[in-house]
């Protein structure tokens, strides 16, 4: 089986992680632009960060046979630094149209302040103008209200829910998000977001339509194998392989594939120019990817709580 992790912050991860991810069947990742542990104080830090996720990180991923995509946006936490936020807004059009940029994101609410609301709305307008998809970060605190409000604002700005991904859902938000026609993403992140046993139950209850999972692994205690481990657990707990494929691969591809910037051929049959630029003759992916369901190493616990 092959997997996509459609939300992971690889700038914070090591080459060991890339190796493990590839060994467990991850063929593509999407790196949403977000905050770093340390708040940024100048626009140059944003510029170099955006350049990293379209440049160096893409190259680094490719060395391990993993295709790397990203989203570009001003995250809600740093939208509160308004002087800086204005300058970042001017940078966004420079990056939004680059190859492999699949959406504007992560945008939305953190503390749900007025400044966050303002920059969220301006970026929704930018996405409309550039005909781009949107990835929405739902807040950790006051999550249900923040999630509903995010969807209301999208509707107010006339966005098509089929072109918006609402991320970090849980048992409390899933029904509303599905009902309103948005893509419904779940983050398997130990401690704070979803555990993978809970995720199995959600798929059993709600099915697989418009549902997909990610690890959102970053600089915190998180697990870059969140997607393959959850796939394995789902199979163990009796979900059919087609459902596992939908939730761990196909739905993310269908959602972000609408951008035209991520295609299955990218990893199954890459263009010669990409093979030269990204893989340097690496043949891992040529001629079709072999199914990979490998047992986790002994020191790796399957359950993520």
């Amino acid at each position, binding site marked *: 089986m092959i997997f996509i992790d459609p939300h992971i912050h690889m700038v914070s991860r090591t080459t060991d992680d890339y190796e493990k991810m590839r060994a467990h069947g991850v063929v593509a990742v999407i790196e949403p632009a977000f905050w770093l542990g340390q708040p940024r104080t100048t626009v140059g830090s944003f*510029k170099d960060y955006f*350049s990293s996720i379209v440049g160096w990180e893409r190259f680094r991923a490719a060395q391990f046979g993993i295709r790397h995509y990203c989203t570009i946006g001003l995250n809600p936490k740093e939208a509160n630094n308004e002087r800086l936020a204005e300058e970042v807004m001017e940078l966004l059009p*420079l990056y939004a149209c*680059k190859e492999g940029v699949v959406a504007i994101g992560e945008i939305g609410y953190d503390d749900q302040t007025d400044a966050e609301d303002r920059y969220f709305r301006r970026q929704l307008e930018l996405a409309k103008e550039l005909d781009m998809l949107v990835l929405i970060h739902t807040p950790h605190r006051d999550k249900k209200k923040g999630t509903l409000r995010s969807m209301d604002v999208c509707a107010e700005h006339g966005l098509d829910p089929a072109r918006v991904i609402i991320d970090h859902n849980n048992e409390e938000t899933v029904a509303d998000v599905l009902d309103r026609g948005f893509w419904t993403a779940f983050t398997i992140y130990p401690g704070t977001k979803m555990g993978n046993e809970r995720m199995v139950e959600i798929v059993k209850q709600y099915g697989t339509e418009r549902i997909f999972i990610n690890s959102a692994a970053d600089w915190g205690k998180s697990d870059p194998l969140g997607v393959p481990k959850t796939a394995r657990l789902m199979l163990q707990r009796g979900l059919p392989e087609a459902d596992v494929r939908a939730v761990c691969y196909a739905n993310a591809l269908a959602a972000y594939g609408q951008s035209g910037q991520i295609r299955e051929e990218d990893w199954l049959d890459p*263009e*010669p*120019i990409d093979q030269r630029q990204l893989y340097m003759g690496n043949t891992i992916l040529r001629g079709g990817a072999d199914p990979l369901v490998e047992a986790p190493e002994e020191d790796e616990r399957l359950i993520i709580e």
Partner: protein
Amino acid sequence: MTTPSVSVDRDRVIALLRAWIDPVARSEGRAWLDEKRRAIADGAPAWQFFTAFSSVPRHLGKDDLRLTEADLAEADAACPGWQPQAWSVDQAGRTLLVLALPQADADAFVHTLDRVFETADVGESVALYQSLPLLPFPPRFRQRAAEGIRTNMTSVFNAIALRNPYPRTWLDEGAWNQMVLKAVFVGSPLHQIDGLDERANPRLAAMLVDYAHERWAAHRSVTPELWRPVGPFAEGVVLDDLARVLRSDSAAERQAAALALAASPDPRAAEVLAAEAPDLREAVRSGALTWSTLAVPTRPG
């Protein structure tokens, strides 16, 4: 260094690039490109150039150009040393957009290029560095080229170091030497460096010999091509190194040592070669063995 004289027929370069795109890209894409080139040439706002530059693969695709020997000869005539055999259609399109920028004000042109270099993704960086020999105001991009050589992305490094005449003409000796040494270090094929023989120099030769010693101390091998820029400056104890390589298990290494010894100005070199490898000496003398016939691995691109 003094200002080199190179003549680039930029109008011809543009005509060639535009013609090569025809059989590879669809007509809507070509129409889009031509419209953007016109708008940029007419002084469209900078953001239009930036978004068009980023969007090229969406309109033209990313297929390789299909160039014939005759095309490559034309390329070399329009810009000496230009070898676009591995160019793709998006790279040609991006280069045409850069060449469409107004060139009346050198500072403005360089400023725009600086911004696009600083924010470039992998594919854009490769296209930009490949296009350096074709741009106006070439001396203004010396720092940029030296910066490109410091990259850790092999594909970006190769875009400037291989099949690209810019470094040969415009890099100072320090930057040139770093480039050749780094090509050895990252395993890029030296024979694809334009001007490798012409710009060989004693400092580079010494650096390469030191590098070989460092690798040997770690029980690692070096590419046989390393000895090519060393040969013309190989004297004294370096001949002992070459004698050692002449006794290698690898045929390519033995051949490289013979070629380097044959190029050495030191009279003792001929004696070493005659004593240790008379067959190789004969092969060099007859022209059967040259750096071009040397069996070295080649990377794609």
